[in-house]
């Protein structure tokens, strides 16, 4: 098994853990963390894709790397927005009397 394949498999495992966490976790902060795990898994897969697709004597294909950097910025911004909303929510009356999971 080549290094790139190994990284791809790691990525797939992280995606699985992240997806499971996002669907199953009831606590909102845990869901946000699960989203970050899921994102990291996808970026690893992109890394494996870059290594495998390398051509012309390059160590790796630069385009997936550019996509990962863009994706990191997006995931960082998403985590920021979600955390800010969560902080506001926990400060509000609804957050204080945090009811069990269910639609409002």
């Amino acid at each position, binding site marked *: 098994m080549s290094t790139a394949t190994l990284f791809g498999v790691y990525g797939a495992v992280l995606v699985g853990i992240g997806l499971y966490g996002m669907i199953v976790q009831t606590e909102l902060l845990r869901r946000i963390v699960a989203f970050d795990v899921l*994102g990291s898994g996808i970026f690893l897969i992109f890394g494996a894709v870059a290594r495998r697709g390398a051509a012309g004597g390059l160590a790796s294909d630069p385009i997936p790397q550019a996509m990962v950097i863009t994706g990191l910025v997006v995931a960082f911004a998403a985590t920021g927005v979600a955390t800010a909303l969560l902080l*506001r929510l926990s400060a509000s009356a609804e957050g204080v009397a945090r009811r069990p999971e269910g639609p409002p």
Partner: protein
Amino acid sequence: MTGATPLLWMAVVVPMLAAVVALALGGRAGERIHLVLLPAGLAIAVGIAVQAARSEVPLHYHLGGWAPPLGVALRADWASAAMLLVTAAVMCAVGLYARGPLGTPKGVGEARAPYAFWVLLPGVWAGLNAVFLCADLFSGYVALELLTFGAVPLVCLDGRGETLDAALRYLLFALLGSMLYLVGTALLYGTYGTLDIGLLSRHLRGEPALWIAIALMTTGLLAKTALFPLHLWLPPAHAGAPAPASAVLSALVVKAPFFLVVRLWLDVLRGGAGTPAAGLLAALGAAAILFGNVLALRQARLKLMIAYSTIAQLGYLFLIFPLAASPAALTGGVLQAINHALAKAAMFLAAGLLAERLGHDRVAGLGGAGRAHPVPVLAFALAGVALVGLPPSGAFLAKWFLVSAAAQTGQSWLSRVTDVGALLTSAYVFLVLARAFATPVEPLVARTPPARHRDAAALALAVLAALLGLAPLAAPGSASGVSQVDLGKALAYAVSVAALWPVAAGAALAFALSRRTADPPARGVLLALDRSLRQWPVAGISLAAVALSLGAAFLLRDARW
């Protein structure tokens, strides 16, 4: 071949620049910037539409002069141009409407909600334009995320706990969707070495990686567009936001992921997704139409009713996929998207005006509104006509395209679904109107003096939606196929018994329901089903089930490659 035009980057950069300047200068300046931005954005959209209609090839622009596969390109065909135009129209009306309720009050340095609104509105505009113009799937991802980050805070402008909860639910489910989409792009890039839509469509081979990627991406986009049964976030988010924000969210934001599904299925796969998968999307659409419309009829609050109506109307958009062999299907789908954008924005604005003046938005308490506040009720009525599909609204023409494409391809069950949809839609539209023209229980007291420009914004959108069916007269020789339609035949169908019986039956149902004086009872099988479908874990499992079924349906596809 030319078709290169700098207007395409301006459509994204100009609103984005306005958002950045508003962020730096504050809410009062942000509101003033819109006096320039709204006409400028409309002019850019009109310019693109005119050039797209004249050009024989789709318009394009290569950023920095680098052509794909190395560079990033923007591209506009007739469908993009039409969506840009309707976005600009809705933005102008919403910007006009929001001058007043979302102005920074006198004597206050800065207020939170107006500041956020006037920064986010151009941000959403830039995101929408970027989605409609993107020429590769990764740019589509970035544009969708830009749009989501602009749209989510619009839900909780008033900062109440329940809207914060709705916003967070919306954000997390949308993020789950975009992650599925991103996995798909990684798989596609790994397999084909490009994400450019044009290049991809030429290099496709029917590999498992392709089908897994498309199934994941489509499911992610369905989560973001809130197609039944993935609609858990939509009703609280769209009903809880302030009226101008609801109008943008319901009319435009949910159309962007749908537009990318169209790009994936019709441009990348070129209709090669196979009958079972396309049938699955249409079946979900049909379920959305029936379920959303019945639930809309059962809502006690006007804004929730309109939000559930959006779930149903999104269903119509997905009926086009089994008909993709016929070019009329895409024309009908885009026409339906535009019609719904105009009508739904008008409806939310009208509901906002009524709620301000009556002090509540209970459907059962609308009595007398028709006499006291005729303009918002008229706007609601015209928008309702457009949703039901009476001529000369855009939906009447969209339905004609759909019905004729369904007849050509022998799938007349789709026409039965639209008939039942029209029946239920006309039932809740007429129910609201019957309530509004009933005698009030107690005399109405006007809470706020009517502002003419805000009434006019809602009415203008409603009139546009109600007259959209005349578009073939205004779009000569366009690539969209709109001009090839025989308007006389379409009109003859629209006034036939086959098209009118659902409307009449719906009106009769509404009349029967309007004799009840109280709110509809908050129990029943469908309401319970909706509540359980909107539980987070159930929606997560539905998401996985949709992805798996799509993947399985792809495996059963017709052998095309």
